[in-house]
């Protein structure tokens, strides 16, 4: 949070290593990446709607104006209900930068017959150019994975009403932030699934290597909800684990890069992997190829591609975001965007969703512990 950073004793930028440090010093006038160009972190809005839902997860910028939404609005969903039970949040709120107003966009019924287990909205969310909003559910009945269902993807119209559900054997806990290719009448979604084989969080839950990345190809006829025309598991075998504190840990960040590469943040592997030919491949690439591992990463979660071609990924175990050049596989540096010392290390457990601002020179992120949308700029 900005006020904490101003007085923080921790340097905001942490460099990746000695080599990078020297390189940085030699070309101090030239920014090495996005993070060093950011100076402020401003609270944008509380993300809590009137029903009291907590724990903001997904962040999506509206690509178009449609129904209740204006282009550039930020859509934010909530994973927890008002009692702070995980996997029971049902709401999406919007923040309009133009008017600085926050409003409820959708309150999805807790139970939808087609969605196994009900509704608990995750980081998987996208808005299409046709105005449809697609959001993932990884539901629980009691806030733990003991009662989790396999969930679904819910299709909402631009008024926030449920227009359809995508479920089936390939979908179990659609979890991480989606990557999207949107061509209007067709679209391709990439979503990670972290629910296969995950059981109770009691005791010491085992890591289960069954998480997948699913590619969904959609057809969108005028005025009709998207229809899935093809499903392909393009990556599989990622670690996933039930957790009594954070519900589930698994691959969370997805971002498309040049040449049809899909980058995946592998939270338990503490790495970012590349899935080649993600748009066209017909088989699973397994857990992909390491782009970078460990270093400044501390349980990487949601991830976004910045205009400079770098990946920016949030850390789950501290309040840093890490900037990575995927072309060189280098971690450039990390920045403290949440120095909340109510946690140790500061910001641990606070970050999740991330989305570039419309101008591309900053990003929005959530602070889960205080239910706020914040902007780094």
């Amino acid at each position, binding site marked *: 949070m900005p*006020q904490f950073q101003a007085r923080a004793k921790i340097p905001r930028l942490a460099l990746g290593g000695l080599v990078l440090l020297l390189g940085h010093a030699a070309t101090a006038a030239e920014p090495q990446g996005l993070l060093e160009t950011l100076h402020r972190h401003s609270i944008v809005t509380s993300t809590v709607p009137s029903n009291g839902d907590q724990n903001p997860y997904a962040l999506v910028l509206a690509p178009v104006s449609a129904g209740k939404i204006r282009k550039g609005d930020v859509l934010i969903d909530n994973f927890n209900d008002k*009692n702070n039970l995980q996997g029971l949040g049902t709401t999406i709120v919007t923040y309009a930068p133009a008017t600085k107003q926050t409003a409820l966009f959708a309150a999805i019924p807790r139970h939808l017959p087609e969605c196994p287990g009900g509704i608990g909205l995750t980081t998987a969310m996208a808005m299409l150019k046709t105005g449809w909003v697609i959001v993932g559910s990884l539901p629980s009945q009691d806030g733990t994975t003991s009662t989790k269902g396999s969930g679904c993807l819910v299709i909402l119209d631009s008024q926030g009403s449920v227009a359809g559900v995508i479920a089936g054997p390939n979908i179990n806990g659609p979890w991480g932030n989606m990557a999207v290719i949107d061509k209007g009448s067709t679209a391709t979604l990439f979503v990670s699934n972290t629910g296969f084989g995950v059981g109770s969080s009691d005791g010491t839950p085992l890591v289960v290597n069954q998480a997948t990345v699913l590619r969904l190809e959609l057809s969108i006829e005028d005025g009709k909800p998207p229809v899935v025309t093809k499903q392909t598991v393009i990556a599989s075998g990622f670690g996933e684990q039930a957790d009594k504190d954070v519900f589930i840990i698994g691959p969370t960040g997805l971002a498309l890069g040049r040449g049809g590469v899909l980058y995946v943040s592998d939270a338990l592997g503490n790495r970012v992997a590349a899935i080649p030919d993600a748009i066209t491949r017909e088989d699973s690439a397994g857990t992909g190829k390491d782009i970078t591992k460990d270093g400044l990463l501390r349980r990487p979660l949601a991830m976004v591609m910045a205009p400079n071609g770098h990946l920016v990924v949030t850390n789950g175990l501290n309040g840093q975001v890490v900037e990575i050049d995927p072309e060189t596989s280098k971690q450039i540096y990390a920045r403290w965007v949440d120095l909340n010392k*109510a946690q140790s290390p500061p910001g641990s457990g606070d970050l999740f969703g991330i989305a570039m601002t419309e101008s591309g020179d900053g990003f929005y992120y959530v602070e889960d512990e205080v239910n706020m949308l914040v902007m780094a700029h």
Partner: protein
Amino acid sequence: MTTGKCPFASRRSVIAAVSGLLVGSAVRPPQAESAPAPVVEPFYGRNQGGILTQQQRHSYFATFDLIAEKREDVVRIMRDWTAAAARLTQGQTGRPISENLAVPGADSGDTLGMRPSRLTITFGFGAGLFIKDGKDRYGLAAHRPEALVDLPAFNGDQLVEGHTGGDISIHACADDPQVAFHAVRQLGRISYDVAQLRWTQTGFLADFPSGETPRNLMGFKDGTRNPTEAPVPSRKSVEDVVWVGAEGPAWMRSGSYAVVRRIRIALEHWDRTEVDFQQQVVGRHKYSGAPLGGKGEFDTPSFDQVDSDGNPVIPETAHIRLGAAELNDGAEILRRSYSYNDGSNFTAERWPPWRQGIEYDAGLFFVAYQRDPRSGFIRIFQTMSKLDAMNQYTTHVGSGLFACPSGITESGYCGQSLFEA
């Protein structure tokens, strides 16, 4: 069975006997500036006691649900409670003690021989007196003040039924914990057929040196910016803040609205937090009590002050910023809170790192008086409940709003002009 004479006609007689000792004793009256505080607080007057009364060191708060079916039964109990409260505050037993030992004692007797300890008893009426479950049980619905709203659901509320609501509140405050509890106990025992206990809360205030602002369990001074009789410019006087004026119904004029909140504090989490960060959360220096950027406790906080990076010196989410009248359209309340400590029990903290286990069930029994809660507590807390950095450590688990009627005359009873309106 023998019938003996009670050795104590009243607690007052004992007080008279020991009062000479008090003058020269080492006992320090709490918060007295120079002269010792009076041992007895007045019961009758324009306002109820326990609101602007210099805060006592102990508190016993209780709410009751009315089970009476008729209005006259409610009137009867208000008469009886008023009479008993008047006696208790003067150091007497709740009811005169009979010489007949073959019947239950009219008073539990556990404060016989004790001083009145500045006991005050403050009555409040909850919404349930006027209408409950849609029923106008006592023909009072039309008299429910507009200001006696149902408190909205605030962000983060985790209210427990057993610590929330009530048709009537009784708040006993005294410098001795047994005197405070004794008072509520005596009132409760004479109303078994009319009102049943709903929930209770004890509280305590540390015995800080005179003139100093007490610290709460977080270790920070609490109450520095409370309204005063002689306000600083741009601030209201405490009388303006607290007492209902002509805008309210006749029975509430010179009365006040009490908001109570049982706020559990994750002390284990707080104790693991750097002092510097605690100061950022509160917006004050911990040890001096000065606002960040200031030097003395009573310096006016400079909310516009920024550091070299342009970030506010008193953070945007600091508790004192979000509670400041200057930044809340002038909204002010009189805080008269007590710490509480109810042992320990299992809890799951609501914030990272989400500790679970046996933790202290301790915190703040927040009590605030104002002339209208809509422009007082609700106005302030709507924003605070969403943005206050302190919310990472605090959980509101109990709540209530009560209309505390105007003061009581010697020939009347509490709420008389309401019941006779």
